[in-house]
């Protein structure tokens, strides 16, 4: 069978070998560049850091050890500190919840406005898309700091900042979900004379709600961290408590430890909770479509 294909075969062979060589070259080059970048980057970072990587490595546990030692020594205070930090924790969770709720609401609207096939004003889709991109790009920190300047410290600037960012982040994910939604039910409702909002409520929502919810949960988890971090720069909540305790240092490490524990437990708790819920949501939903 190969007798008539002598020339093509030789060509195939040569072409493939050339391809292999080129691929090796590119692959090798890419790997080398990447490694070089990584090494050079590390070198620069190491050089611009106050302490070097190698000298610091043996001391990596010095600080945690100080904290643990003092916390252990004053362990009797821990329950009291935990109780004291609880309101701040609740505030942090409230910031995240408010930000996620309002962000998701904004994201729903923007994502509907920017999904082809659903948008009531298809011509404005690029506008709403750019809007979401911009909202995603502005770091929470920047918005929070500006708002703190105007509104004063506290949870509201943090909630607004995180909510603003959430609109952009969730909006993008939601519109991906919307794009995959089946438009047939929507058309069916339209044929019965349904308005745009009725079509979205009754035709789209049941299809996309599980996915939306799952993404919103993931965001909620991320937002808890974000609100803790913003507290660190003055936006209230548990981050604020942590900053005050930790920066005073020796003498208040027991308090710091209590806040650490609380924050860590909260993050882990919501992390696990959200992954269990999301798992159930997506897998449960899949089961139901095929009864």
């Amino acid at each position, binding site marked *: 069978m190969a007798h008539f294909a002598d020339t093509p075969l030789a060509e195939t062979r040569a072409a493939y070998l050339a391809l292999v060589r080129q691929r090796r070259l590119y692959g090798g080059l890419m790997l080398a560049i990447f490694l070089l970048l990584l090494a050079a980057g590390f070198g620069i970072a190491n050089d611009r850091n106050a302490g070097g990587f190698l000298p610091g490595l043996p001391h990596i546990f010095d600080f945690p050890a100080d904290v643990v030692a003092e916390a252990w020594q004053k362990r009797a205070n821990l329950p009291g500190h935990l109780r004291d930090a609880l309101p701040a924790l609740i505030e942090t969770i409230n910031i995240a919840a408010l930000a996620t709720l309002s962000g998701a609401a904004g994201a729903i609207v923007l994502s509907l406005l920017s999904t082809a096939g659903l948008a009531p004003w298809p011509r404005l889709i690029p506008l709403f898309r750019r809007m979401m991109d911009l909202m995603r790009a502005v770091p929470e920190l920047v918005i929070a700091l500006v708002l703190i300047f105007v509104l004063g410290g506290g949870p509201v600037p943090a909630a607004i900042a995180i909510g603003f960012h959430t609109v952009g982040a969730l909006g993008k994910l939601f519109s991906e979900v919307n794009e995959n939604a*089946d438009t*047939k*039910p929507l*058309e*069916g*409702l*339209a*044929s*019965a*004379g*349904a*308005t745009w*909002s*009725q079509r979205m*409520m*009754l*035709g789209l929502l*049941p*299809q996309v709600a599980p996915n939306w919810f799952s993404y919103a949960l993931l965001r909620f988890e991320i937002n808890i961290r974000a609100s803790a971090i913003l507290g660190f720069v003055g936006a209230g909540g548990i981050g604020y408590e942590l900053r005050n305790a930790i920066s005073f240092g020796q003498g208040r490490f027991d308090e710091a430890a209590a806040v650490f524990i609380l924050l860590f437990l909260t993050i882990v708790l919501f992390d696990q909770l959200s992954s269990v819920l999301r798992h159930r949501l997506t897998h449960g939903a899949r089961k*139901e*479509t095929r*009864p």
Partner: protein
Amino acid sequence: MLEVKGLTKRFGANVAVDAVSLSVDRPCMIGVIGRSGAGKSTLLRMMNRLTEASGGEILFDGRDVLSLTGREKRGWQSDCAMIFQQFNLVPRMDVVSNVLHGTLGRRSTLATMFSLYPEEDIHTAIDILDRLGIAQHAAKRAEALSGGQQQRVAIARALMQDPKVILADEPIASLDPMNAQTVMEALRRIHDEDGRMVIANLHTLDTARRYCDRILGMRDGRIVFDGTPEQLTTGVARDIYGAGTDFSEAATSTEIRDTAPVAAVERRLAKVTV
């Protein structure tokens, strides 16, 4: 009562429906046939205002359908129910709710958001489902039903609209022969008993012949045949489908079977009988 004049739809350079005119003076059951791409769906979608027409007009009881907007347009849509090949139900919602969606044109968004349907609507929905023989599935999710059952839910939604016209776009194309028959019979019965006008796109001649009073044949966006089932001879059908003399009706029959092995066995059969 229905008057279509020079109705045209262009998609870019492509003319999907080409100056179709049509006049219907009493509610009857009309079948539209034609091969794929002939413009059947586009015609129906324009009537329901799902697709905007490029030109022409549609008059229904004197009302200029194509010029309606907003609330009035939705009012017309609820007078003119549409049934789709893929049912177009909300699959994750229960059957009754799907049927109740037929009342959306009449209800406010807020009321429907909170499922504030009046009691008599709910009763009507159940009655309609009962009439179509699927009341026992009322509480199930639409997606849990078979194709034929889902199409009957779609018909129930259409009836819930209490429409003057029912448009059905290949209502049986995704159904097996058994379900297809049930659905066509339901449509026919609605026509017979309620006297509603039914216009159905069909892609099989035998179905059209069996259930319809009047048959329209479309080709390249134009109506090339308009007559009774009896007038629809094989020769006419060949014209409509643009087929040569090798055209066999079996190729478009609703019965699902692979023609090749059947043909083979039929050949054997032929041999034996000869």
